[in-house]
């Protein structure tokens, strides 16, 4: 399956355009601030219904316009003309209303429409996945798992809903019995979130290691889920729920003092470590720029593999000027890896023709200036 057609209406500076994408993908060439990344953002919006750059929906509406709309048509790889699926998203600034449809039908929840495109974005900002705070890595896990693990998004939303209410009760200084009334739901939804995250990190640790060493051209790296709840020996969701309950009891004084819930998936992190000649380094604190970028790439490659395995098809790869900051050796190895592994559609952006490194001759060129694409 690949994205065959993209229709844009007032998404950032992209105006009104109707673009046909070749099955192999396309290289988009243009100077900075012409709209290259906006185009990738629009495509990925159809995957998660939010901006991968962290922009709010109202910031995506073109200046002076009230509504943006993005529509994508996906066709099967076998070349049949008939679209296999149509995904559309629109946002109205005034009513703050988002409308998502799949094949013309609005799903009961936006979450039901996630992941239809099966895309992964690689961007220079990804280095934040390694150097940023724990919340950046939690968001990464939450997006990957929402796209790949059935029931994850529901548990996460339930957990968040309960957490804000429990925190409000704590902040309000409500008696312990009232705060505890929220524990049942908090523990149940929180344990489901922790279990899914921990299992994913454990089962993907090896792939992360392999990708890291393939890109770095040498040593490997590890990732581990670090929970604020003691998970040693906790096997399934039941065990985790029990551990979480214990952790809440043990932290009750601290949370009353702080007026907020101090243990749970909202305080967890993923630790990325590098073994270097017997040394065990935390990449966030001690990694070099190159090592952090390599780890970030490895995380995106693991994400792509997860999507490939759970959705049963090659993910669409969106590369946002991604080789600009990698040294020569690393980018050669990433390219090799992508050429070997990713046979899906590739949409990449580059400032100059000479910066196109992947599928050098196979990809048609589009030029973009002031938001307008010229094939």
């Amino acid at each position, binding site marked *: 399956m690949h994205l065959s057609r993209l229709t844009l209406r007032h998404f950032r500076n992209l105006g009104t355009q109707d673009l046909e994408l070749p099955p192999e993908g396309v290289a988009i060439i243009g100077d900075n601030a012409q709209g290259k990344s906006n185009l990738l953002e629009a495509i990925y919006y159809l995957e998660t219904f939010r901006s991968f750059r962290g922009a709010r929906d109202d910031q995506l509406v073109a200046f002076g316009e009230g509504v943006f709309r993005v529509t994508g048509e996906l066709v099967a790889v076998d070349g049949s003309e008939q679209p296999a699926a149509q995904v559309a998203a629109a946002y109205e600034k005034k009513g703050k209303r988002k409308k998502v449809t799949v094949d013309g039908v609005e799903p009961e929840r936006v979450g039901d429409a996630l992941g239809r495109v099966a895309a992964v974005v690689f961007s220079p900002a990804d280095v934040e996945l390694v150097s940023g705070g724990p919340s950046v890595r939690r968001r990464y896990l939450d997006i990957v798992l929402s796209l790949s693990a*059935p029931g994850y998004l529901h548990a996460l939303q339930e957990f968040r809903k309960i957490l804000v209410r429990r925190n409000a*009760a704590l902040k309000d200084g409500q008696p312990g019995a009232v705060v505890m*009334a929220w524990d049942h739901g908090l523990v149940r939804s929180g344990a489901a979130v922790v279990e899914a995250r921990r299992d994913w990190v454990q089962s993907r640790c090896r792939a992360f290691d392999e990708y890291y060493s393939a890109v770095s051209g040498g040593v490997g790296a590890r990732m581990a889920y670090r929970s604020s709840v003691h998970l040693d020996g906790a096997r399934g969701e039941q065990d985790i729920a029990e551990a979480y309950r214990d952790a809440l009891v043990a932290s009750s004084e601290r949370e009353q003092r702080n007026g907020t819930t101090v243990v749970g998936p909202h305080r967890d992190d993923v630790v990325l470590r590098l073994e270097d000649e017997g040394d065990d380094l935390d990449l966030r604190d001690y990694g070099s720029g190159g090592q952090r970028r390599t780890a970030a790439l490895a995380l995106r490659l693991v994400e792509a593999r997860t999507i490939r395995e759970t959705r049963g098809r090659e993910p669409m790869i969106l590369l946002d000027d991604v080789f600009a900051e990698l040294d020569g050796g690393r980018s050669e190895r990433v390219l090799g890896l992508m050429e070997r592994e990713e046979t899906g559609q590739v949409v990449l952006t580059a400032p100059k023709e000479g910066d196109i490194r992947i599928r050098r001759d196979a990809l048609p060129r589009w030029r973009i200036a002031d938001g307008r694409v010229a094939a």
Partner: protein
Amino acid sequence: MSVIDQLTGEFARLPGIGPKTALRLVHHLMKGPKDDARRLSRAVMELAERIRPCARCGNFSEHELCEVCANPRRDSGLICVVEEAFDVGAIERAGQYRGVFHVLGGRLSPLDGIGPEELSVAPLLERVRASGGEVREVIIATNASVEGEATAVYLEQQIRPLGPKVSRLARGIPVGSDLEYVDGTTIAEALAGRREM
């Protein structure tokens, strides 16, 4: 402000009625027999003056006690706790329930500053305590929202030490809906709450 504008404004404040519908209702009353308008006005007046909360359970009532509490054939050893007085009507319409009610007047909602003090929790506990063991079971029929669930947990903790059995209204597949279209959570809960046949 003209009388027409005034009444239109009042109608428009009602749930589900926009300004256009409000105006249409006013025109209808103006065109129809004057007695129709008088009858409506009287009914609204009586509603305002005669309906009050039942002194025992909080249900809508025209007297000191509501029809359920005043009925000697209802089982006062069985109390069904609901969030709002409207929920009493929903359960009554099903025609199965023989016990009595208790209306909380809301649910635990810390984001709105609503704790047990703001709800009719103390009167409920007092009812159970004062019955001297006559209350055998309390059925908690709060909504299936996160607030309704937390309220149920809280009430269970408060009531159980007083003696009665505490149960939660079973949740399940809505009657008349295709299993195919029921979401996973509902199915999981229906399975977990299944009964032996």
